[in-house]
């Protein structure tokens, strides 16, 4: 258990490529932080820097107030679960679990006791004599977890540990990992590209893009109030829809407008609307008309892809109910709030409610 403090961490490679810019993050004792972002955003590099597997180009990393920049992974007292588990293929499950303790000179009976305890905690007590190749994916995952848990480290690091599992096992394991982490109350840093995994597991979420942190907050805070257009598009499934609108001709359905700022707003802005906030209605009776291009039935609901008249972008509508619209039809769209407004650079705009007198006629 520990506090983790990242101060202006940077990573530069010899060739001059700057992959991480000024990462500032502090993680509380026992907290589960999930770092999420598209591939290549630097999230794995960040994790490996915390682990001590990558050097820190500049900035400082503190664990419990000690600067650990120059320390080897083992000295930092962290444990890591790798994407491919990295179990030692020639060692039995017992030896895999015991290896780190052996390297620390733990007495034999102490090792046996802790392996026994850990393997029971993870439900792998019956597998101790097996080699990793005799285990299923889920069992390997558990052994990898066990190898991290057994040392009772100060910090847990997870590098996309569930991406090699099939979908149903992934759901089960993410619940197990979360439960275990809460039970042991160990400070954790978890990296994933899967936003569902991120939302369900995190105490706080860190969204990264192109080597920078876009936003830090609880999953629901990020969902309700994304700070940038990138976060808005990344969190939530299916992704948020965006419409580009000219600022001097905002349509009547938009119930919010940008708040007055010192700088006058010019040009265009984007409006983000979540798929569940668009309703299909009969053609001509909604805020705008659109043509249905694709219908994806999911059972309890369906995703309807529509192209509004006069717009280039396609919108996704979450359509409840079992009656499916057909592709090619014309439909009306009712757009409801909350709307998220972003400027040209993707930054969230402060808004104010729209006054009644500025209502525009319906867009056709």
């Amino acid at each position: 258990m520990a506090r983790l403090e990242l101060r202006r961490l940077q990573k530069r490679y010899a060739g001059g490529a700057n992959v991480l810019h000024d990462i500032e993050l502090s993680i509380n004792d026992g907290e589960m932080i999930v770092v999420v972002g598209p591939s290549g955003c630097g999230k794995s590099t960040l994790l490996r820097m915390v682990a001590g597997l990558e050097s820190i180009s500049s900035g400082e990393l503190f664990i419990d107030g000690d600067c650990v920049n120059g320390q080897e992974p083992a000295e930092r007292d962290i444990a890591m679960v790798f994407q491919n588990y990295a179990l030692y293929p020639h060692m039995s499950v017992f030896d895999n679990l015991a290896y780190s303790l052996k390297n620390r000179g733990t007495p034999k009976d102490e090792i046996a006791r802790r392996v026994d305890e850990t393997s029971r905690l993870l439900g792998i007590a019956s597998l101790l004599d097996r080699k990793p190749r005799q285990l299923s994916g889920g069992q390997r995952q558990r052994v990898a977890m066990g190898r991290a848990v057994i040392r009772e480290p100060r910090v847990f690091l997870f590098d996309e540990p569930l991406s090699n599992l099939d979908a149903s096992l992934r759901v089960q394991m993410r619940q197990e990992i979360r439960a275990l982490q809460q039970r042991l109350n160990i400070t954790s840093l978890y990296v994933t590209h899967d936003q569902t995994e991120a939302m369900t597991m995190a105490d706080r979420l860190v969204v990264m893009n192109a080597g920078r942190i876009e936003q830090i907050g609880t999953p629901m805070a990020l969902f309700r109030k994304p700070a940038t257009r990138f976060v808005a598009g990344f969190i939530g499934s299916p992704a948020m829809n965006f419409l580009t609108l000219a600022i001097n001709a905002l349509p009547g359905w938009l119930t919010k407008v940008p708040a007055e700022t010192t700088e006058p707003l010019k040009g265009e802005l984007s409006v983000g609307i979540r798929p569940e906030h668009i309703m299909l209605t009969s053609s001509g009776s909604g805020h705008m008309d659109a043509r249905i291009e694709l219908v994806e039935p999911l059972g309890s609901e369906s995703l309807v892809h529509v192209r509004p008249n006069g717009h280039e972008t396609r919108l996704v509508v979450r359509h409840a109910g079992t009656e499916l619209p057909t592709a090619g039809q014309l439909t009306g769209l009712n757009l409801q709030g909350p709307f998220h407004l972003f400027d040209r650079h993707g930054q969230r705009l402060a808004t104010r409610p729209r006054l009644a007198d500025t209502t525009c006629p319906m867009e056709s």
Partner: protein
Amino acid sequence: MRYHRPGLDVLAHTILIIGALVFMLPVILAVLASTQTPGALFSGTLPLWFGASGLDHYLTLLSEPVRGIGVPAWQLMLNSLLMALGIAIGKLTIAILAAYALVFFRFPFRRCCFWLIFITLMLPIEVRIVPTYGVVADLGLLNSYPGLVLPLIASATATFLFRQFFMTLPPELMEAARVDGAGPWRFFIDILLPLSKTNIAALFVIMFIYGWNQYLWPLVAMSSADNATLVMSLKRLTISQDGTPPWHLATAMTVLSLLPPVVVIVIMQRWFIKGLVDTEK
């Protein structure tokens, strides 16, 4: 792959049997000839069955100093064995350590080191035998085991093969070991060596036979009879003083020289089949 065509089976077996015979024939002839009396061998006909001498020639070779060489054959075999083991173990040790450094460590001129090792693949001992002799003579190592083994102890081939194998291992394995508190030596001994078992067994066979069959270098470096190896002595045996080479002894010694490599292959084969079944990358 298996096709259910009897004709194909017959054809395949015919080809295999012919191939086996072609390879076996010289060995069979040597074994048969080594059991003949000297007189029977010089009658001019190829022996088709075991002769009257039985194992007499073998006993002679092993118990008495061999004519023209001066030491019994077991001494020669021991010399050969020491040389072959020295070369095989030396090559494996150096190659696996060099490959470990090349794959898992980042140091300046790493690629350059690899290419330097790699190009020595193209330099056989024959090309560098004169300077090698000079160096070994200057060090006073002629007619000694170190002098015999040291010039042959580096192997670009084995380094290259270990390097290729190490590169197939996921890098996370070393990272996991680092997180688990294993230093470079621990990782090498606890993880890399056990995983390389199969490769080590296979390369040991190849390198042992390579060492056993060395001819030119022992001939140059070992001029005294006490230090002669079996393979280089074969030639000396056939140069006889009275004009008729003792073919009965020469064939018997050839068969003796075949035995240790065969034993090594039989033992090691079991090992690397076990390795293939037991471990998985």
